[in-house]
């Protein structure tokens, strides 16, 4: 096992612990917990068996696995940013409606 694999393993265990903690506290549903668990286990699998994704990046014409990782990472970041934006807007609107409702009571 090389250094990057040890680092990845620690990271995966750490995130698994946090996902489980949120699940036990009732902040994650079983499906949310399962979703994140699949992500962490998938990461662990790729770190230990890097050649397993060769077939993916060859089909997508990426020269290196790292390129694929970068593109996927950026897409996820944009997706997450959009989702956060929507949630903040919705929360803002709800907060405004609630504060107004209390004021007009």
């Amino acid at each position, binding site marked *: 096992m090389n250094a990057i694999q040890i680092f990845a393993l620690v990271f995966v265990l750490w995130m698994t612990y946090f996902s489980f903690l949120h699940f036990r506290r009732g902040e994650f549903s079983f499906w949310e917990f399962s979703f994140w668990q699949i992500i962490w286990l998938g990461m662990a699998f790729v770190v230990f068996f890097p050649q397993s994704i060769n077939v993916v990046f060859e089909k997508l014409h990426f020269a290196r696995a790292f390129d694929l990782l970068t593109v996927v990472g950026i897409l996820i970041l944009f997706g997450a940013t959009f989702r956060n934006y929507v949630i903040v807007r919705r929360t*803002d609107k709800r*907060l*405004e409606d609630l*504060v*107004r409702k*209390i*004021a*007009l009571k």
Partner: protein
Amino acid sequence: MKTIAIMPAFNENERLQQVVREVSSLVDHIVIVDDGSKSALSDQLVSNSSVTILRHIINLGKGAAMKTGVLWSISHNYEVAVFIDADGQHDPNEIPVLLQPILENRADIVFGVRKFHGRMPFVARFGNFILTAAMQVLYRIQVEDTQSGYRALRLSASEQIMWTSPRYSVETEMIVNAGKHKIPYVQVPITTIYHDKYKGTTIIDGIRIMINLLAWRFL
């Protein structure tokens, strides 16, 4: 026509009492929207039957406070509202001038237009010039002072005029909505009073308003 003054206020203690005293003789009622002030304004104002104080439990912004005031006024059957700042930047004696075009059925919304003189901070003058020009180019609406908050509104037109901006874009959005729905409007000259040049719209607000102007036009 039943008239009401809507006064959004945030941590405004110094001049509020005097403004309320001056305004109360010129309208039928006053609604002060305390927009999450540190200490509730209702504790500081002398109780008065012609004044209603609504309190936002947290600060939402001027636009949101104005909207709360409008909704309260409509639900209490007021017909014409005048928006006036609580910090004494607007001369209450000019309320009749703002109300007159609506009472004479010449307009549904009246915009107060300030004279831009040297006492007004340069940033405010420059920002207003840019926003006014942008408004004319983008919306073909000729309002000479897009950022003045001293306005009167016939409340039956409030549905078309109603804004979504919770903060300082509210003044601009009102003009945009008036233009979109072809609401008859009149501009009247008002006095420019600046007590504190660090209060009110900031450069960041100005940039935000500009972005909103473009978004409302093209998106």
